[in-house]
């Protein structure tokens, strides 16, 4: 437990570790950064890691500013970054060619998965959010309100506190696996309510909220029996952290998103039509209950996969769709892909800021999504107010 706490802290300190490693060159950076097997290095270096938390010597800091090649390149990979950094293409090629092995590893194994998981998770949550909002006719509906995120937190807490061992799963996979199972489980419960509550949307929303409270209560119960380290780990997990993801996670979340996207796109007409009111849709012969079942299923699965690896970043599922709605209107042909895109962009921006705001420190991205998302949303709302 102690060990994994150290691991998690280190993951928050990727920047610092990069640089430290760059200076000392005594371990394979990937293994440290990915937290794969820290036991043999980590235990010796625990004291070192504590030092990293202290203010850095001026000289070292300056070096970090002077030598941020990999950071810059990754910044360009990251969609949001490129706009801010304003790097030219030709510069990028030059930089890529000039990378040495270590920098290349940092690029391919750390920065690129980070940037891509931000896109994949953001897109998945944006898509899940817009579909939930439309199908439940509720602007507040999101992966959060359906209870899926809270269930993921509960699953993660179970993994951290009770530390169950599953024979066929490697230790590192137990936490995301349990988060996924709990999230999917809560999704299935919501689905059962949709099916047997004859699809009344108020019932679904209410049940979702009830599920949130139930999961929170159970998580609190786990807090109660957990030791301080475990609690801290749970709290870290709930912050949301993209640096936990590697290529496997990127593939899984992207595959899930890309597999479900065509189904969402097939429903764009129905979803648009539903904005005209459920009564009309029903009277035109549309089986709204069946549509609702499919959409909630999709939304829950997407959310479950999106949050199980990186922790709860549910706010994207609320803000992405609303930004898209304000920019693109209600036609779901544009709104559905637009919400996915907005989710991806906002999360990328948050991910960029989480690394760039304080040099050498990664702020948990879950915190920054709200900090970034709220002003963007407010700006758009006020702009629209002025137009109308």
């Amino acid at each position: 437990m102690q060990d994994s706490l150290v691991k998690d802290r280190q993951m928050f300190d990727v920047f610092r570790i990069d640089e430290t490693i760059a200076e000392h060159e005594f371990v394979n950076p990937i293994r440290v950064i990915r937290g794969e097997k820290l036991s043999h290095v980590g235990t010796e270096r625990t004291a070192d890691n504590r030092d990293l938390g202290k203010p850095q010597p001026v000289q070292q800091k300056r070096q970090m500013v002077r030598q941020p090649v990999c950071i810059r390149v990754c910044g360009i990979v990251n969609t949001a970054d490129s706009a801010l950094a304003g790097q030219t293409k030709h510069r990028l090629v030059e930089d890529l060619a000039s990378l040495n092995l270590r920098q290349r590893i940092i690029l391919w194994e750390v920065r690129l998965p980070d940037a891509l998981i931000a896109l994949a998770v953001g897109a998945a949550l944006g898509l899940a959010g817009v579909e939930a909002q439309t199908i439940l006719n509720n602007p507040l509906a999101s992966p959060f309100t359906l209870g899926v995120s809270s269930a993921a937190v509960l699953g993660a807490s179970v993994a951290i506190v009770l530390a169950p061992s599953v024979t066929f799963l490697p230790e590192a996979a137990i936490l995301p696996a349990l988060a996924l199972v709990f999230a999917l489980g809560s999704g299935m419960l919501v689905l059962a309510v949709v099916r047997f509550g004859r699809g009344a949307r108020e019932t679904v929303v209410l049940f979702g909220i009830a599920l949130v409270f139930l999961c929170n209560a159970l998580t609190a119960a786990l807090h109660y029996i957990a030791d301080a380290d475990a609690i801290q780990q749970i709290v870290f997990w709930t912050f949301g952290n993209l640096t936990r993801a590697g290529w496997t996670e990127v593939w899984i979340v992207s595959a899930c998103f890309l597999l479900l996207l065509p189904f969402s796109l097939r429903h764009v007409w129905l979803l648009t039509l539903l904005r005209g009111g459920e009564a009309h849709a029903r009277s035109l012969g549309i089986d709204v209950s069946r549509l609702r079942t499919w959409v909630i299923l999709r939304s829950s699965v997407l959310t479950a996969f999106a949050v199980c690896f990186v922790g709860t970043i549910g706010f994207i599922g609320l803000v992405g769709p609303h930004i898209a709605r304000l920019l693109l209107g209600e036609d779901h042909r544009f709104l559905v892909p637009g919400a996915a895109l907005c989710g991806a962009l906002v999360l990328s921006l948050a991910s960029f800021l989480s690394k760039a705001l304080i040099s050498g420190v990664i702020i948990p991205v879950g915190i920054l999504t709200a900090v970034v998302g709220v002003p963007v949303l407010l700006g758009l709302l006020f702009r629209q107010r002025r137009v109308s």
Partner: protein
Amino acid sequence: MTSFEVANLATYYGRTQALHDVTLPRLGAGEVLGLLGPNASGKSTLMRCLSREKRSTGRILLDAVEQQTITHTRWHEQVGSMPQAPPAPSDLMPTELMWSTARALAINLSDAELAAKIEQVFVRLGLETVALAPLHTLSGGKRQLVGLALALIREPALLLLDEPTAALDLHWRMAVLEMVREEVSRRGGIVIAALHDLDLAARYCDHIALLQHGRIVAAGSPEEVLTPAALAEVYHVEAEIHHAPDGSLRIDVLRPI
């Protein structure tokens, strides 16, 4: 030739029976049936049963084909229905709503044909000026007309209208019914409209069915059904019926009793 028959229809909300043994006059091509009755008499419920939104027992035959024997999709290819509530006041524009409805229902028209069709419906309903305004900025009456436009997009054989004129002004409540009449007589369709306006019902309906507490208490031509005695019993009003020089019926409602 289109024909429509409803016999011995019954339905429930939970355990309460909402419709008892409803049998309607047999309707032929181009005919309009007015469904009258006080609040909570079961007009909307009957409409929902006919559009197959709500389950019912009894027989519903369109062109002598039993409703239960054909699929949901097949049924809705022939039936257009407008619920009592107008479309939700969302940010959607009437054009977007019409377009997505047509596409969601897989209406077999090219983009150009569909655009022309939507424009034609909008012009006839006086909606062309608000076609690109968000629904929540439309007046209540215009929103109700958008609801009617949705039901018309499919050119249905059977058109079910639940209080189509409730929110409309003097001009449009007549214009709408005239347009609907003209439309179905041209195509040989059938209309069933729930109405609260007795004058309109007498003027535009070939048949009238009077509902009370989920039962049909009278059915037939306007002259047969709209009598002072029936209005007193069903609506609890004192009324006088006059025949205008042009042969149409005028109903003077004097006071509630």
